[in-house]
């Protein structure tokens, strides 16, 4: 179900662009803000709401990796798996997350608090290893920092 907030906001979003097609990526970002992911029914609803064919929405949606099509945790941990972060030790971050949270790639914890995925280069290689949790970059990560971060988030 598209939230009320989206239904109020979407016309303003479209107004910022040339046309509703050009607004699509932003509209999808907005929908994802509600639940952290985009459901199949959201695509159908959006299609009717802005009168854009399902095929156009789904073909774009399935192309871009920032859109989650499955439920993610309250804190979605994304670990960069590209070269510089690998050299800096991203593997040990992944292992740590598995040890501490019993979380493997593309999984979500039972309590729904955390989910894990690997991503490609985040564009901050100088402070590798880098992870992204929801909208925030966490740079110069090490096991200590990671543990503190996870504990903090757990408390929230």
């Amino acid at each position, binding site marked *: 179900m598209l939230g009320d907030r989206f239904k109020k906001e979407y016309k303003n979003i479209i107004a910022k662009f040339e046309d509703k097609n050009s607004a699509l990526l932003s509209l999808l970002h907005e929908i994802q803000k509600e639940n952290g992911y985009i459901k199949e029914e959201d695509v159908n609803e959006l299609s009717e709401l802005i009168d854009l*064919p399902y*095929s*156009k929405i*789904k*073909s774009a949606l*399935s*192309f871009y990796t920032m859109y989650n099509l499955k439920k993610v945790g309250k804190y979605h941990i994304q670990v960069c798996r590209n070269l510089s972060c690998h050299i800096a030790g991203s593997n040990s971050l992944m292992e740590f997350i598995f040890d501490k949270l019993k979380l493997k790639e593309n999984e979500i914890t039972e309590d729904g608090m955390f989910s894990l995925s690997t991503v490609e280069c985040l564009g901050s290689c100088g402070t590798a290893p880098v992870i992204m949790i929801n909208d925030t970059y966490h740079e110069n990560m090490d096991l200590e920092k990671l543990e503190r971060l996870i504990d903090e988030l757990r408390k929230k």
Partner: protein
Amino acid sequence: MPKIIIDEIEIEAKEGETVLQAAERYGIYIPRYCYHPALSIAGNCRMCLVEIEKMPKLQTACSTLAQEGMKINTKSEKVKKARQDALEFLLLNHPLDCPICDQAGECYLQDYYMDYGLYKSRVKLEDKNRKEKRLDFGQYLILDRERCILCTRCVRFCEEITKTGELFVSNRGDHSFIDIKPGDKINNNYSLNIADICPVGAFTSKDFRFKQRAWFLKEKKSICLGCATGCKIKAHYNENKIYRIMPDPNIETNTWLCDYGRMLYKISDSRERLRYCVVDSNKMDIRSGLLKIFDRLNSQLTSDKDKILVFLSSNLSIEDNLALFYFARTVIETENIVIDDLKEQKIEDGILLNTDKTPNSKFIYQLKNKYKLKTISEIKKEDFNFIIGYDSEIKKYFPKNDGINFSFLESDTRASLFPIKTYFEQKGSFINYQGYLRETEKIIDNDFSIELWSAINKLANYFSKYMPFNQIDDFEKIISKEGYKNK
């Protein structure tokens, strides 16, 4: 008109033509998957790469406009290698389905491999990507995602020709696949064209699935009789059985075929096919049946000639209608000849389907004008009880006809009934809505039905009357003499 040179042959290209199109007109074939003359250019298969002087990289011939002075080479070593490489990439993840794939024998991958490939594969079977197979995509289509080479002809067809946009590419990279909204199907009445244009066995026809190997099929050209558009078709048959109908693309009338028209061939061996005569509720074979029917007409002629009405039909050929017409005039000696009410003729869906669902109205109207025939609404139906005509048409107006009906399919009429050959089983001329006179071709046959004009001929002989035709070819003279229009 830019002059270009392809493989040292001077060619005059048309304004706006691509290298591929210009080459093709001069008989130089450049292999391709994603290019189709009726669709927009995609340029993604990379099979049509050619060498163009002064350009360091190979260029796709399908998307390169022919420009004055261009020198193109389609036979160099570089081009040969590029074709081999393009094939290798397309076949990298392609499944080894040939033994079970309907496309075999008319598959661009097989054909091009024999022409341009012939290399040893370096891929192990277990390394190939797996995708979903045998997906139900509509009344007539099955999709095999593994075989798909993502040329996007199908997507472009739905967007540009039927303008229904059902199909789209989903996901990214080599996980991409052709998709449709869940629960939706491609039911836009032109879906089987997608099976035609799919160069590989990804989209295949359910109707044709597993029925016959393509290399056993023979081809005859004919016309579709589903509506007044009268599309040109190719019938593929073997051993007296039609397996499928394909379009015979032409500039005047049709590039495509509608699904409805494609299925009409099934009438010939339909379960409801009329395979016997019915007289006084008795079933009998064609020979005995016709004799009985002649007797009945004889009785009616002597007792109550004025109650006889002859109903011409735009569902029937020129030959059959002329036979009926002459018969009415010279044997029955009546002016009670009628046709159905006039129908508007135009394309109703923007593509091929005509508002007039009968194939020969244009001829009937010419006949009407020449001989001042009346339409069914212009006569008093109660005046007649012995109608001679095409069963489906008569039934609409005379459900309790006691006359003579002829039909392709079984009928519960009270009239005497005899089976006529479909136009897959005989030659027949028709004039389509544009005024083109075209013929069907005899493709298959049987021994339980008769050509209508032949039955009429026999009937005339019975009454010792002369008809100006004994064989189908005799009609040609009549048609040209009487001046029935051929554009």
